[in-house]
């Protein structure tokens, strides 16, 4: 019999805890806050696949989140009543394909040029959505929350559980990738692309896989977003703060290991929510900025890097 790995035991415990929480929690705000954290977590994990595993740091990948959100809006308008899981799948497919296409166009660029090209891509997408009146253009679009919320007490509880499942799925994919032959190929590309190619690694193909998975995952994070906020305009979907979070969380947690973006997202995300409620919603942007600066200067390998250094030091 195959042994069940501790990872899946943890995943099951988290899922059960989430389900239990929907039964006991009184305050709906908790689910809103947790939804925001989980959304950031999926985005951090997605960003890390291209930015961390493959080493292609980029500023535009949050644009795929917006495309995911707008895929939902457009499909929801065209085919009223389409269930949310189908919208998510559609967003994953569309964003994955855009990721593939953009990757094909930009992956010949390196370093800072690649980062700028992806930023330009996000602006192109935003301009496109701004001028697409079917989804509201610059005015934005309203989405009516569906009546049905299964056996949950409220719609937000259902969204929270959905997001929890999606988050666990994303982390599982990222973890699988990290320890696979594919993931080792990506790491070789990150360390030295020329040497990787000479060692037989098909670098272009692997990078395309990486952008496709990143795009699809970002799309998945974005697809339920319109139902969460009920009003989306290009400014909120292509929000700089959301994009910065997706970069800051993996950087703070550590980019080389799958667990890095998870730690980063949970830490920074929950801190932001606490600060937003207790102190001020403006201040939490400052806090991310300060944390990012501190980590990049003092612990460039993130929290995972610090932990590895500590344990290696103790073993000696």
């Amino acid at each position, binding site marked *: 019999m195959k042994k069940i790995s501790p990872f899946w035991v943890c995943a099951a415990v988290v899922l059960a805890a989430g389900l239990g929480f929907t039964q006991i929690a009184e305050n709906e705000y908790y689910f809103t806050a947790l939804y925001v954290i989980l959304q950031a977590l999926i985005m951090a994990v997605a960003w890390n696949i291209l930015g961390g595993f493959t080493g292609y740091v980029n500023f535009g990948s949050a644009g795929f989140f917006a495309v995911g959100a707008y895929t939902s809006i457009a499909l929801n308008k065209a085919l009223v009543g389409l269930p949310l899981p189908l919208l998510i799948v559609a967003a994953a497919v569309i964003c994955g394909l855009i990721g593939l296409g953009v990757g094909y166009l930009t992956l010949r660029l390196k370093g800072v040029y690649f980062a700028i090209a992806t930023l330009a891509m996000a602006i192109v997408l935003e301009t496109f959505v701004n001028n697409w009146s079917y989804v509201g253009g610059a005015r934005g679009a309203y989405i009516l929350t569906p009546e049905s919320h299964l056996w949950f007490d409220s719609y937000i509880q259902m969204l929270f559980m959905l997001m929890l499942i999606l988050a666990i799925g994303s982390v599982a994919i990222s973890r699988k990738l990290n320890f696979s032959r594919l993931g*080792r190929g990506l790491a*070789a590309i*990150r360390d*030295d692309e020329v*040497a*990787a*190619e*000479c*060692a037989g690694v098909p*670098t272009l193909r692997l990078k395309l896989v990486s952008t496709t998975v990143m795009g699809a995952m970002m799309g998945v994070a974005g697809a339920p977003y319109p139902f969460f906020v009920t009003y989306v305009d290009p400014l909120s979907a292509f929000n700089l703060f959301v994009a910065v979070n997706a970069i800051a969380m993996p950087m703070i947690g550590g980019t080389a290991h799958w667990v890095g973006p998870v730690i980063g997202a949970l830490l920074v995300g929950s801190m932001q929510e606490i600060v937003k409620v207790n102190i001020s919603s403006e201040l939490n942007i400052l806090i991310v900025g300060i944390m990012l600066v501190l980590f990049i200067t003092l612990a460039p390998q993130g929290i995972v890097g610090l932990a590895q250094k500590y344990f290696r030091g103790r073993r000696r």
Partner: protein
Amino acid sequence: MSVILRVERLSKHFGGFQALQDVELHVSAGERLGLIGPNGSGKTTLINCISGALYNDAGTIAFEGADITRLPPYQRARLGVARSFQIPKPFRSMTVLENVRIPLEYAAWKRAEHRRINDEAMQVLELMGLKDRADVNAGALTQVDMRKLELARALAAKPKLLVSDEAMAGLSGAELDEILEILLALNRRGVAVIMIEHIMRAVMKFSERVAVLDAGQKIADGDPQSIIANPEVQRAYLGE
């Protein structure tokens, strides 16, 4: 002996600079070929064309009878063309063992036993004398060990032809002998080796045949003794 690599009328220019012109070169299976020439004569450009890092403008490259002129580097590596780099390019986030696993898992995937990748990697490290460094981070190696890792990674690709680009530059006498011994051991396993080197003592000791490049053209090709005696080679190195 059968020819495994045949380069015909190969030319490459960078803008107005003709780096290689109509170069002809062939390597037989299991042969040890030295490739020498003054700085800027086109040695590295030639092997970049052979390994696929650069595409040549004119001419053809055939490996084991098949035209590989337009193949990307990773496919050439899979066919059995391996190279080591003049400036070592280790995968710095990985251990030495993980470094060697990459070519085993990619370039040699069709020829490797998938369940025994770690054992195979350890065998390669043992041959290179890097076995006790297997778990060290590749970025923390000494210069000699980094050169050995370069060769270890090339060997792990299970090549039929190894192109060694100045694997000995900057090493001391004893270290130099160590690398030379490794290259000879590889050759005894049937791997053809093209050695690019400035250190004449090493090239002459190692090579069965030496080819000389000067200003992008091949000016001589023959056994080491005839190369030393060749007046054109002497002129290229020493001037008039």
